[in-house]
């Protein structure tokens, strides 16, 4: 408590550390200036070009120009766009399931030792299953349609969300809960006014991980 008091006091008047952290990793390009961006893209293109010239074989490493042409062709090809849309839809749906399962379960596990004791062994064992091992099972369960894909996206997304939600709720100072309860707050009010705002940044971190994991798993 001594340490946190010091930290709070020191941050008075300047950007709170939390906000600073959020900006810094808010977007990859957020803090990169235009010149830096051109420079790094230029370097990549030059290295790529040299490497491609070295091999000079399409099958090993195509030239940047050829790749960009293919990309341009793909972007105007309606079929590719439709497929892209379908994939995006699947990722978003799976991500939504992961959120719907992960956030409430994580909150329950973060808030109650009892729930955590019961649920943890299940979560921990399911988490150990390599993601590809689910594939045959899910085909048996859901057939060949969207089901298996959605299941996998949900599966890879739910754990980062769950773990970061638990950590987020765990890190809330007990004083906040005590304060809220001594001001007459109901359970619902505590979730809305204390748990979500306090654990929100952690939940978002998990959601970001889940989103990229979901995207990776469909490609």
């Amino acid at each position, binding site marked *: 408590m001594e340490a946190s008091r010091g930290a709070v006091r020191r941050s008075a008047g300047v950007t709170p550390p939390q906000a600073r952290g959020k900006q810094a990793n808010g977007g990859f390009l957020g803090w990169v200036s235009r010149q830096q961006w051109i420079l790094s893209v230029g370097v990549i293109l030059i290295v790529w070009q040299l490497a491609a010239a070295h091999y000079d074989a399409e099958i090993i490493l195509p030239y940047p120009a050829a790749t960009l042409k293919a990309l341009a062709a793909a972007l105007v090809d309606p079929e590719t766009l439709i497929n892209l849309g379908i994939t995006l839809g699947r990722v978003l749906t799976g991500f939504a399931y992961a959120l719907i399962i992960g956030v409430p379960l994580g909150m329950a596990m973060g808030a109650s030792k009892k729930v955590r004791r019961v649920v943890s062994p299940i979560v921990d064992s399911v988490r150990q299953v390599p993601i590809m091992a689910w594939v045959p099972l899910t085909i048996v369960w859901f057939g060949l349609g969207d089901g298996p894909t959605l299941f996998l996206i949900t599966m890879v997304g739910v754990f980062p969300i769950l773990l970061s939600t638990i950590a987020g709720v765990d890190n809330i100072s007990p004083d906040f809960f*005590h304060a809220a309860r*001594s*001001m*007459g707050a109901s359970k619902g009010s505590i979730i809305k006014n204390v748990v979500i*705002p306090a654990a929100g940044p952690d939940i978002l971190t998990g959601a970001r991980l889940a989103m990229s994991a979901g995207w990776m798993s469909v490609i």
Partner: protein
Amino acid sequence: MSKLEIKGVSKQFGAGDTVHRVLDDVGMRIAEGEFVTLLGPSGCGKTTLLTIVAGFQHADEGVVLLSGNVTDGPGPDRGFVFQSYALFPWMNVRDNVLFPMRQVAMSAEDQERRLAELLALAHLSGKEHLYPHQLSGGMKQRTALVRALACSPEVLLMDEPLGALDYQMRMLLQGELEAIFMRERVTVLMVTHDVEEAVFLSDRVLVMGLGGGRIVRDLKIDLPRPRQRKSERYHHYKDVLTDALRDAMGGAGLEALERLEMGAAQAELPPLSVEEIEVGMMGQ
């Protein structure tokens, strides 16, 4: 009938060989409108007792009666001021102070009226859109205090409410606290290890001893308000309580007390910046 009565409260931590009986059959009665301070050395169980009264933890034995009714769990009938303030960092001053009023059935009109009254009382008018990290220690303390007072609790519990502030700010805030209490007329149970603070603010001081948390001294502070620090009687009370506090440490004597005070001084934060002190004084 007492406003607050603590009856035979015991609490121990640990189990088996390492059991530590922090509170052993502790009792006290506090009358309506009385400002009572629990003064005792660090680690004697003050916070434990206060959080039991607040309902944040349960006593192993004994009960806490509020206006004659047994309490169970925290509730808005007992306001609490935390040493660390526990203001919600994601809410500005306005939303922090409105929070307790929004938890009870109170019309929007009444909420606004009460908010304006509390902000004026705490010299925070015009500061309602600042977030806790933008406030000085003194402003945070006053925000936390009026938030706890917002719904007029029957008893206000304060755990070292000025403990996180430096010496000058503490003196200043003691005066402001007194003014607020003379206006709001609430029953208070405060915890501190600071003799000066106890004498300045209290109607009665209970000195708590190490080992079981028994009350070793019950001293009425019979001084007119607002309190003057210069009077001879004021110094007399301070001397009596300093002695009692020393005895409360179980014959460990002056060295232990000094060691404790030095420890406390070291644990304190660096002095406040000039701006911060000025911000605090603007409230005067």
